């Protein structure tokens, strides 16, 4: 019961995208995430401007396996002498592109499936849930490998395959939310009032799920970035482009470990980490924004850390019958001082 309430609460916590962004920005952790994602986008868009060298240029230098220096802040690769920093910058494009496009595609498919399963119900629901069950037991990574083998390794295929297997989680969440929404009073009222299914679906159900979808999409983006890096690391990504996973694969295959070229491994790893981390941060903060109970329970413990006895004494003192004699003294409703205490 309480879980349904939580879901409903998330669903009802309305507000535009703008206000969501504002809330995220106000949250210290959310701000870190937003800034990181912003930087990432900037780097990806401005890659040709930012990159000090052409990352595809593998021939013009006899500078193989250089340690990080002023000329090459992150060193060069052993096999081809490519500038690692430039590759890192260009690699952000792939990560971001695949992560975001797959995330959005999954959001669409997952929401569609979830709403269909939840709202239409019956045979459709049964069918979709059986598909979900089947997809859950098939080992995902091996199947993706098989499919890229069959269909090729262009990024389009990779996105397609990720979408084909990534929608189940979102669909399940959306379905359970829709089931709750469907039985909620306002939808029932609309149904009684003779609203069409389509109308209810688009006016009531879908808006109700939007926040959950946004939140999930952010987390999905992060997950897909890791998955793409893994696939590229196995040498199954698009072989023509530069991606962080492929950089790691090249480092591994090019003997970075043997040569002790730590910079070649560390750089793409940190790239993946930061990108995924920033998206996850945003996702987690969104979860907190949408589900304040979660935030409250964790913040109480923080609050107790900074609780001081004087304040408590004051509170307890105010409970005495005598204290209530003077209404002005009542500290009711005032903020406890731990908010200030938290700064030190």
């Amino acid at each position, binding site marked *: 019961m309480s879980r349904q309430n939580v879901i409903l609460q998330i669903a009802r916590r309305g507000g535009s995208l703008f206000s969501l962004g504002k809330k995220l920005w106000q949250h210290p952790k959310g701000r870190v995430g937003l800034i990181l994602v912003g930087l990432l986008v900037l780097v990806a868009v401005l890659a040709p401007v930012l990159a000090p060298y052409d990352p595809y240029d593998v021939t013009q230098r006899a500078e193989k396996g250089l340690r990080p220096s002023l000329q090459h802040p992150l060193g060069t690769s052993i096999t081809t002498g490519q500038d690692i920093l430039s590759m890192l910058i260009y690699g952000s494009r792939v990560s971001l592109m695949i992560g975001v496009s797959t995330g959005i595609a999954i959001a669409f498919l997952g929401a569609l499936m979830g709403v269909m399963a939840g709202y239409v119900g019956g045979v459709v629901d049964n069918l979709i849930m059986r598909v979900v069950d089947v997809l859950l037991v098939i*080992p995902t990574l091996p199947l993706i490998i098989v499919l890229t083998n069959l269909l090729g390794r262009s990024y389009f295929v990779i996105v397609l395959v990720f979408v084909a297997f990534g929608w189940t989680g979102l669909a399940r969440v959306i379905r359970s939310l829709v089931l709750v929404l469907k039985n909620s009073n306002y939808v029932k009222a609309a149904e009684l009032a003779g609203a069409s299914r389509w109308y209810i679906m688009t006016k009531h159900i879908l808006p109700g799920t939007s926040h959950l979808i946004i939140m999930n999409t952010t987390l999905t983006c992060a997950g897909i970035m890791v998955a793409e890096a893994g696939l590229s690391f196995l040498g199954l990504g698009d072989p023509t482009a530069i991606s962080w996973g492929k950089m790691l694969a090249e480092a591994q295959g090019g003997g970075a470990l043997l040569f002790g070229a730590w910079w070649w491994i560390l750089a793409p790893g940190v790239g993946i980490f930061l990108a995924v981390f920033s998206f996850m941060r945003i996702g987690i903060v969104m979860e907190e924004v949408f589900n304040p109970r979660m935030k409250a329970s964790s913040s109480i413990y*923080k609050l107790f850390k900074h609780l001081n006895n004087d304040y408590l004494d004051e509170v307890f003192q105010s409970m005495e019958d005598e204290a209530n004699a003077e209404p002005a003294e009542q500290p009711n409703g005032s903020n406890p001082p731990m908010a200030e205490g938290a700064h030190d």
Partner: protein
Amino acid sequence: MKRSYVIKRILYALFIFFIVLTLNFFIPRIGVRDPAERYYPPQGAMSEIEYDIIKQFTRAQYGFDVSTFQQYIRYLRGLTRFDLGTSLRPGSPKVTELIGQRLPWTLVLSVSTLLISLVTGLLFGTLAAWKRGRWQDTTLLNASTISVALPAFFIALMLSFYLGFELELFPAYTNPNMVADFDWSWKAIQVVLNNAALPIMSMALGGIVGYSQTTRNSVIAVTNEDFVITARAKGLSHRTVLYKHVLRNAMLPLATSIGMSISGLIGGAIIIERVFNWQGMGTLFLEANSTNDYPLMMGIMLFLSAFAILANLVTELFYVILDPRVTVGDKR
């Protein structure tokens, strides 16, 4: 009541398995009309007649010499005898045989990873729930955000680099002689463990954090339940409340996630096995992939799927023991 539930679950698992095996049959046939043209290009100076022979041969090899329906029947018949087909490798080893050779080595990794991450995760998770809001808990929370964002293969590479190459504490890559020279002696076991240390570490790191987080959340959720207050009101000691009431109930969601992860562990070891050159199922699969050895690939897929279905089924049935409520209302 219970019995009908068990039968229902088993039948459902069989149904899912049937769908999976059917998919498994059709997936490698997506867009492949003639495996000969696809996988065996004519090489060098090959005459038309020679290439025709090769084509016929390849079709037979891939089982494309009869109609798709007959192929399917043949495939099903093979499955009834636990025959997953024949690999295209030289010498045509049976797929089951190849899996049999590699499975134990993957199990070495996955079972110890599971055990380590489970035990440690339970401990840490309980500790974090216990010390809720204190540094132990905050550390765990941060660790979980970080570890999800750090791909296991990157951790593996760093461990291999630092502990393997720099400090030379462990073999940076698996010594293949390990498999060949294994004879159950204490020395051989030590060698295996020594070689397995880094792969297990890199896989367990994420697992520990994951299980800790699940345990923590689950323990906290259970701690807020009424029956825990009842238990405390009975005057039970703290430890009894924790072990008999909190943990027992907190295990329920954990059991589901273990069931899910058992199947993932074998398939998920692919990348780690690749990093350390560990001769397990993962590398077997990658080998099959690089040689277009579809019978082997799909055999492994089916095996993994069957394993996942079985793991889920066992979890579900085990759940009946763990949670007596399950049989009453359908849990899903």
